[in-house]
């Protein structure tokens, strides 16, 4: 082992070492060292003393050190990745939040034709819309080729329940709550950046990329739905 490293004279660097750092921090200062106002600076940089010593250590026993280097590096990489996972995973919805996603039941009888009711499931807003005859007809009489996210109305309601439209209530653009019965198609209009949805909750104009998605739900009876049935975390 390089015992001489310890004995190596350090010179008087200690008493001037604030100059060392001052120069490392600001060469602009040292650029003016010759100008009388900033005074001379003649200190040796501490690193310059150590460099030759470090070289001689490296050449003594390369094989064993190389092995340790690779083994330690590999262990560190695996360890860091393994340790990072719990940290990232802890940010995901926790057990409590997932459990709060138990299905909710909704009685449809009080909802009049033309009315939109808002319910929450798993913290997410859901619109339950009792569509009128005209609204259903408007949703069905659409040339699918003109749609940004083509989907027939029949694929967005449960068979035999065309009057009930159940969709997530956050705009698929950036999540605002669109206003019901507004906009060109009298479906929804999003006040944030102007997305327009039709009476089937399909995107018709504006920046939203896709239709309002349909949450998982089933009809328990003709007048009752269960939202969240069979959902996964």
């Amino acid at each position, binding site marked *: 082992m390089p015992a001489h490293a310890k004995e190596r004279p350090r010179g008087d660097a*200690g*008493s001037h*070492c*604030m*100059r*060392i*750092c*001052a120069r490392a*921090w*600001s*060469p*602009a*200062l040292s*650029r*003016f060292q010759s*100008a*009388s*106002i*900033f*005074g001379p*600076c003649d200190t040796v940089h501490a690193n310059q003393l150590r460099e030759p010593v470090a070289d001689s250590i490296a050449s003594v026993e390369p094989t064993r050190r190389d092995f340790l280097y690779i083994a330690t590096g590999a262990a560190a990489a695996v360890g860091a990745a393994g340790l990072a996972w719990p940290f*990232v995973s802890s*940010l*995901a*919805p*926790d057990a409590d*939040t997932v459990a709060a*996603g138990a299905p909710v039941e909704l009685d449809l009888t009080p909802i009049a034709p033309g009315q939109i009711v*808002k319910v*929450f499931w*798993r*913290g*997410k*807003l859901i619109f339950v819309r009792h569509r009128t005859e005209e609204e259903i007809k408007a949703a069905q009489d659409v040339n699918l080729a003109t749609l940004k996210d083509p989907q027939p109305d029949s694929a967005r309601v449960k068979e035999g329940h065309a009057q009930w439209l159940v969709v997530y*209530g*956050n705009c698929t*653009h*950036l*999540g*605002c*709550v669109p206003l019901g019965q507004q906009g060109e198609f009298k479906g929804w209009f999003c*006040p*944030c*950046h*102007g997305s327009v949805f039709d009476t089937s909750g399909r995107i018709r104009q*504006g*920046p*939203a*990329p896709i239709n309002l998605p349909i949450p998982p739900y089933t009809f328990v009876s003709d007048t009752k739905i269960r939202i969240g049935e069979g959902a996964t975390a």
Partner: protein
Amino acid sequence: MSKHATTYVPKSAFAKWFESRLPIVGLIHSSFVAFPVPRNLNYWWTFGGVLFFMLVMQIITGVVLAMHYTPNANLAFDSVERIMRDVNYGWLLRYLHANGASMFFVAVYIHIFRNFYYGSYKAPREVLFILGIIIFLLMMATAFMGYVLPWGQMSFWGATVITNLFSAVPIIGDTIVSLLWGGYSVGNPTLNRFFSLHYLLPFMIFGVVILHVWALHVPGNNNPTGIEMKSGKDAVPFHPYMTVKDGFSLVLFLIFFAWWVFYMPNYLGHADNYIPANPSVTPSHIVPEWYFLPFYAILRAVPDKLGGVVAMVAAILIWALVPWLDTSKVRSAVYRPLYRQFFWVWFAVCILLGWLGSKPAEGGYVIAARIATIYYFAHFLIILPLLGLFERPQRMPGSIVESVLGRGAAAPVPAGATAAPQTQG
């Protein structure tokens, strides 16, 4: 002059003892006392000091606010009201912190426009400039998360809209958003993690600021002429010349700050944020804080979700390429007759975008925002590279000292100075 500008020499026995163990006084002395700055720095160079003051100010008011604030979705709104009504001087602390964030951005925008005008981003200051962009991004993240904390309507819907931006990322977008939320929508877990990050990020900013100052002290300051310092005659020591100039500027800035705090403390905020968060109703007109408006306008100008997000992010990241997009060898706009005009056009476009960002996204506003967005990018991608090739710079003085003392009959300084009167500081 030589009296002020000596390099630090510890005098007392203790100072010597200490300096030989931790040379920090010498470091401070050489960085903020003896440090040579160009003698012609004008008041646009005083905003770095203002920014540092504002960062410290936000940290101090923030730490005290955090002693009274409760980061829980059911309690946060009321705890902020308690700060306003019950805590001694709580109203002052909160108004200082909320308006302080705005003033922080006023200062940083002045600082950034200064860099663009005087070409401070050019070699050898590219890394310094990019560190500044990183600070700006961290500031935006910090201010955004801070605005969520009072848990009012604007807090909630601002958080919803901004976190949803990440859902535009292909494939992993939804996963990212759910990791940001800690749930299926913005809620209590979101508020908790935002509070934690809002506390953390200012200290990260502090760290990057140290790197920023370090990178500044390698080449030294740029200056209104854009000519490097060539001799000691071009320079003055930081103290007392810059300390007093920075100090004076800071006092004026604080008067401006105090005027907001004491006379119109809620003007820069939104009334809707005094309504508790309601996840089933979005306010009819949601807009971000004023300092995000130009970028918000760019977001909305693009009629595609992913495209809008990309354009908004690119509007800032493109700055990092400016040292290479600007092909002119001359730094300062003072000697660049064409760039000087294009700079002001671009400046006006930025202000216009800010105004458009505050308007509803419909009709003529959207069209105007599209034109302004195209111009904004054209400025960087087309105008800057071409100007350097075609522009004929004006004659420049031989040195900083010549520009100040006007030595030589043909000194072109007055011409430049009349076109840009602020350089006469």
